[in-house]
């Protein structure tokens, strides 16, 4: 066996006492496409950041063609031949394809950019890797798949030997995904090593040679793709920590259709090109979990229910009355609450104290003739802080300084404070430690027992099987199944989630 192209040994990262990535090994050969998978918080993004230099690892080393990689220095890492293609664009949209590809390294003659040479170089590069791009097109006017190709070409122009691709197909249509896969295979054939990060099992089985699965900050499985089944992959990602007994314990408290009263009824909801034919009933006093891989358009669907994203087909009935969700304010007025997935960008005011965040949705309850009643707010906030067990329990503490788990509790608390009749939560425990997770589950169960209708979107199967009264599975914008959680077996769930729809 020849020496690997990239070899990471004992690469690890910890923040104080929190270990984000236990010392891990990773090997990549020339021409190999290796999938890197794991659920949110598994340490995947930390590993990537160590390799791009965004994060300086606390230990370990990385060799590229036998030479050590300058860890922690993004620019130097790129120049030594490891490039990353991020989910967000890393291009200058108003510049031409050609200028983006040779950004910062245009050939010059007598101090002027030598357009002719630049064009030849870029065209040679594109031809060599079989990428079909117009060098003069403005990047901002290109479809996303073409922009991804520009990024790939840019990385190759910087002599990339290893390409990291972070969910490159996130926003792509099916035909574009196939196109991108062809490009990836072609690059591999030319000897480029590729680390391919994706949540889509289809993709991984279509384009990758081997895979590395991370869970809880460590590598749990490393195998060639043709020697592992989908079920095994999902099982390895999710882990087997959930014992049969605790499953049974969870079962005993389940109420498959809550009180039986239909609170929210969704009929044939659709949005062109995103999701379609979504129909289900949400009952008072139940927790309905909708699961599926990332990219199955669950988030877009629940935002449509709340009024923060459009839909163009079907209808939503609340307590039998037809709703036309228009805006979040309107959804709230009808007693719907939504805890968004991204607490930093969509959920919280990080620069403001816990107190202000907690009363954000209920401010109008706390004023008399337009003047706030601080005592009413203080009372409400301290009881919320106590109920949520936020640490530290100081109302004046800035939310940005809290740990992920406590931030999440504040975010959920801000909505529980309204006591909505329907509460929708998107990935309620991403990046949250085990203790806080259990507390959040208890809060949601208590809300359910009070008669709230709770809709949870989650990719964490352990969470789904622990929390749900009923489980729905979404795949590529469609609701595949909807069943009582009691008696559902995990292999069944896994098979459905990973199904090639």
């Amino acid at each position: 066996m020849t020496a690997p192209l990239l070899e990471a040994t004992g690469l690890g990262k910890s923040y104080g006492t929190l270990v984000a990535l236990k010392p891990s090994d990773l090997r990549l050969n020339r021409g190999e496409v290796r999938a890197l998978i794991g659920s949110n918080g598994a340490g995947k993004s930390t590993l990537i950041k160590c390799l791009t230099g965004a994060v300086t690892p606390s230990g370990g080393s990385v060799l590229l063609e036998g030479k050590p990689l300058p860890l922690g220095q993004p620019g130097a890492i790129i120049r030594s031949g490891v490039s990353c293609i991020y989910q967000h664009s890393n291009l200058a949209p108003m510049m031409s394809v050609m200028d983006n590809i040779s950004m910062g390294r245009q050939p010059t003659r007598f101090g002027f950019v030598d357009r002719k040479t630049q064009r030849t170089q870029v065209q040679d590069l594109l031809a060599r890797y079989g990428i079909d791009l117009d060098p003069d097109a403005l990047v901002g006017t290109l479809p996303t798949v073409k922009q991804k190709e520009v990024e790939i070409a840019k990385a190759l122009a910087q002599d990339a030997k290893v390409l990291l691709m972070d969910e490159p197909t996130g926003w792509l249509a099916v035909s574009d995904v196939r196109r991108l896969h062809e490009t990836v295979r072609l690059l591999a054939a030319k000897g480029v090593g590729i680390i391919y990060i994706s949540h889509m099992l289809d993709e991984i089985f279509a384009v990758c040679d081997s895979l590395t699965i991370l869970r809880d900050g460590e590598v749990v499985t490393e195998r060639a793709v043709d020697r592992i089944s989908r079920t095994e992959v999902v099982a390895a990602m999710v882990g087997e920590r959930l014992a049969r007994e605790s499953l049974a314990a969870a079962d005993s408290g389940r109420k498959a259709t809550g009180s039986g009263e239909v609170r929210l009824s969704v009929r044939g909801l659709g949005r062109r090109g995103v999701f379609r034919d979504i129909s289900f009933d949400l009952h008072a006093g139940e927790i309905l979990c909708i699961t599926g891989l990332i990219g199955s358009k669950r988030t877009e669907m629940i935002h449509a229910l709340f009024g923060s994203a459009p839909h163009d087909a079907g209808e939503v009935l609340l307590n039998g009355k037809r709703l036309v969700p228009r805006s979040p304010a309107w959804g709230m007025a009808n007693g719907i609450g939504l805890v968004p997935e991204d607490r930093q960008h969509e959920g919280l005011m990080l620069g403001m104290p816990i107190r202000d965040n907690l009363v954000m949705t209920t401010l109008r309850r706390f004023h008399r003739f337009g003047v706030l009643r601080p005592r009413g707010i203080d009372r409400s906030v301290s009881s919320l802080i106590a109920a949520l067990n936020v640490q530290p329990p100081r109302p004046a503490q800035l939310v940005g300084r809290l740990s992920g788990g406590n931030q999440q509790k504040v975010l959920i608390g801000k909505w529980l404070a309204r006591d909505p009749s329907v509460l929708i939560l998107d990935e309620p425990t991403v990046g949250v430690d085990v203790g806080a997770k259990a507390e959040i589950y208890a809060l949601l169960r208590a809300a359910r027992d009070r008669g709230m209708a709770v809709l949870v979107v989650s990719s964490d199967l352990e969470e789904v099987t622990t929390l749900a009264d009923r489980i729905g599975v979404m795949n590529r914008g469609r609701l595949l199944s909807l069943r009582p959680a009691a008696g559902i077996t995990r292999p069944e769930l896994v098979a459905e989630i990973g199904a090639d729809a």
Partner: protein
Amino acid sequence: MTGLMTRAAPHALTLCVIAFVMILAVLEPAFLSGSNLIGILRAVSLVGIMALGMTFVIMTGGIDLSVGPVSAIAGLVAYFALVAGHGLVAALLAGAGLGLLIGIANGLLVASLGLPAIIVTLGTLSIVRGSALLLGGPDLHGIRDQAAYSFIGSGAIYGIPVPVVIFLVLAAMAWLLQSRTPFGTLVAAVGDNERAAWLSGLNVTAIKAATYGLCGLLAAIAGMIQSSQVHTASATYGKFGTELDVIAAVVLGGTQLSGGAGSVARTLLGVLFLGLLNNGMNILNLSIDIQLIAKGAIIALALSLAARRTG
């Protein structure tokens, strides 16, 4: 040392103001006389009133460059209303109403069309100035025989000049609005995280429009006080540079241009700081040139320290 610096940093401005007062008091005993202190307040009252409104605008992450011309046109409109014999109340309402409307127009252009605030208010600055000149020409219009109107700018209540009284009353109201009503929290929320604010059901457009409206209203009030103070109305008042002083006071007070948490109380401290700076430099008999340079340098230094603090 670093620990001390970090702990002292939030109070840096307060400490500066206190240090300033002490230094000036030692250098020039007349500094601490009641008349000088009231004089300082009187000198900052116009910029101070405008800074109150600007605080809310900057808290949303916006900016309003049009306050100078708005103050001029409000003074002019009030003057014309008085001359036309509509009475004091109608005149004041006309001036204030116009300021409010211009502000709301700014706010709607920024909030509902998503245009950059700097450019929008740069545009309205030019439009309002042109309109004011069209209305009143470049000349000064003397305001005579309007005792009630003149009282606003030149009168005194218990020895305290009326502009100072108005400034203090408005400051108290703005402080209440920012810290004791839902509005203050909502404005900070919009500036801190607009998307999250929208997802929390806040009407972001209305909140932004309201802040610009408030800023326009307060600029108009300041403009009317000024015209009453100097017994003339002119389209050229509130000249270029006014908005810079106003913005500097707000930003010195610790409200960040990127929006988010802000405080009227701290803006007042910023206003006071600028007032002391000007007064102190006058007392020390520094020429206007040195004053301008020192002001620029001190503002840049203070803000760069603030930038370091927040990383």
